[in-house]
């Protein structure tokens, strides 16, 4: 291996063991007869780490701020709900199909919108997400069918134990972490960074920027769709306002931002921190909770715009390199 080169498999030796060790501990956690509450909390943390990672794969790496990722969550949730409750399909097959359905939407949406820059891309994705929510709410009534059930929502078959979802989310989170890691180390990782830093120069250097952007967008959508499907099964009942809610987008964005956009550990740190902090905050200050979150957001943006992990990495980069 030559100097400066990072192979796809190289990682400072101890990190691999650290990560594997943590995963092993998490895997045997439930064996300690933990309460349902703890299992649910852990599952939620895994889910949000996964969602924040999805947003990171797209917006963190490319810098294109997606304000509508929830649309794929909702599409995934509805796909799974319909496949399981109407089609009687098994869970794992349903969620994979849901991921594919999300990609089938993502590509035609991504191709035109990823030509837009900055604010316009953000607004376009937001508009699309809100439009789909309205469609989910109004489709049945306007078209005259009994399909999506509008605001009545759809009920899924009852799911198995907390442990089942714990492991499902753990696996998804791990897969996403691995995917992000592989992307970062691969050709595509360099292309993404180049697009983020100087898109025109990247294009002039031979990078098919549109294809790379759409690929990242589709990957993100795929996983977001799957997570939406799992969540639907977990909740057993979904409505458009729940699964197409802008609050989901907001959390994905904030968690990734807080941890550090465009970093591997950023979503992990951000999602864990915010979920763990939210629980007691929400319990103690149910009325002021959102105000506090708002203040946290403003303070982080002003004081630590690169997020926790990002700020640490930036210090390291500034320090070395001469």
């Amino acid at each position, binding site marked *: 291996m030559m100097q400066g080169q990072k192979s796809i498999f190289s990682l400072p030796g101890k990190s691999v063991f650290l990560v594997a060790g943590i995963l092993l501990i998490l895997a045997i956690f439930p064996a300690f007869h933990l309460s349902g509450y703890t299992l649910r909390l852990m599952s939620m943390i895994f889910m949000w780490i996964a969602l924040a990672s999805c947003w990171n794969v797209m917006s963190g790496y490319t*810098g294109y*701020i997606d304000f509508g990722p929830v649309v794929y969550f909702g599409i995934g949730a509805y796909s799974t709900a319909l496949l399981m409750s109407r089609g009687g399909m098994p869970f794992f097959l349903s969620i994979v199909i849901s991921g594919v359905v999300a990609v089938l939407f993502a590509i035609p949406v991504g191709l035109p919108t990823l030509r*837009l820059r900055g*604010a*316009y891309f953000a607004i376009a994705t937001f508009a*699309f997400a809100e439009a789909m929510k309205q469609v989910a709410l109004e489709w049945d009534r306007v078209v005259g069918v009994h399909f999506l059930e509008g605001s009545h929502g759809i009920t899924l078959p009852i799911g198995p134990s907390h442990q089942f979802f714990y492991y499902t989310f753990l696996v998804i989170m791990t897969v996403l972490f691995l995917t992000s890691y592989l992307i970062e180390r691969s050709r595509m990782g360099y292309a993404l960074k180049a697009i983020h830093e100087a898109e025109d120069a990247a294009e002039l250097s031979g990078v098919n920027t549109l294809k790379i952007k759409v690929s990242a967008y589709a990957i993100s959508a795929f996983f977001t769709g799957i997570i939406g499907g799992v969540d639907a099964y977990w909740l057993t009942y979904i409505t458009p306002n729940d699964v197409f809610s802008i609050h989901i987008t907001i959390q994905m964005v904030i968690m990734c931002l807080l941890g550090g956009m465009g970093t591997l550990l950023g979503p992990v740190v951000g999602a864990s921190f915010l979920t763990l902090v939210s629980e007691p905050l929400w319990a103690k200050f149910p009325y002021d909770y959102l105000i506090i979150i708002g203040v*946290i957001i403003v303070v982080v943006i002003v004081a630590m*715009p690169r997020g926790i992990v990002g700020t640490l990495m930036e210090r390291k980069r500034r320090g070395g390199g001469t």
Partner: protein
Amino acid sequence: MIAQSIITGLLLGGIYAAYSAGFSLIFGVMGVVNIAHGELVMLGAFTSYWLYTLGHIDPFLSIPFSAVSLFILGYMIQRFIINRVVDAPPIMSYICTFGIHLIIANLALRFWTADYRSITTPYCGSNLECAGMVLPYARLATFGMAILMIGGLYFLLTKTDIGRAIQATAQDREMARLMGVKANHVYAITFGLGAAITGVSGSLVSTYFVIYPQMGLSYTVTAFCVVVLGGMGYIPGALLGGLILGVLESLTATFWDAGMSSALTFFVLFLMLIFRPAGIMGKGVVE
């Protein structure tokens, strides 16, 4: 029937234009997408509400109060918070203003409760009836005020010194930055101005729309649409965009389905962004 729908749409559109102009101004000059925009409308509406309920001041007369208090609020927000992120990547300003949205909307919720409120003035039910159409006086008056306000803003931007300073800063942000302190002051004035206009439209809106702390977000969304249609940063475009959107929504609600009118708004917005981000007249700022 169609004429009534169109006129209603135009009246609605005028008010859309009024509260979107401020959004357009702020984006055009500073490149900031103000997600707390709707909260400025909300605060303007509540200012009028409280002045009416506690002081019996007619909403139209409360306009100076909204204008001044929101100007000050806008100035402060820009000076102390947004100023720090104006030069950072755009996402920072979106998230920052989003945080501000959360703070303001939920503080309002805390202090004023989620109850829906409205202002019932003695004249709010009276209508002008002409050519078989029913035109509420309150809406006609607010339409008139909205046009006056947009015209006034346009005049201010093009004919006065401060207006030209704002335009110059908008056109060459780099130069403005190099000029240091002065640019910050211009930005703060711009934000204050944008907030003031938006606050005034909140007062206008309070005469016939329902008022509650969470109302802001849907106004922000409509402002997006209006401004994209008319062209970001192009004030006369806000008027055009507002009128078009108003008529479109009105026609959709009358002839198709009221529920679909917001879905339509979003699809129109989406299509505009893809095919013509510079707005219908092509004069918008495209990054």
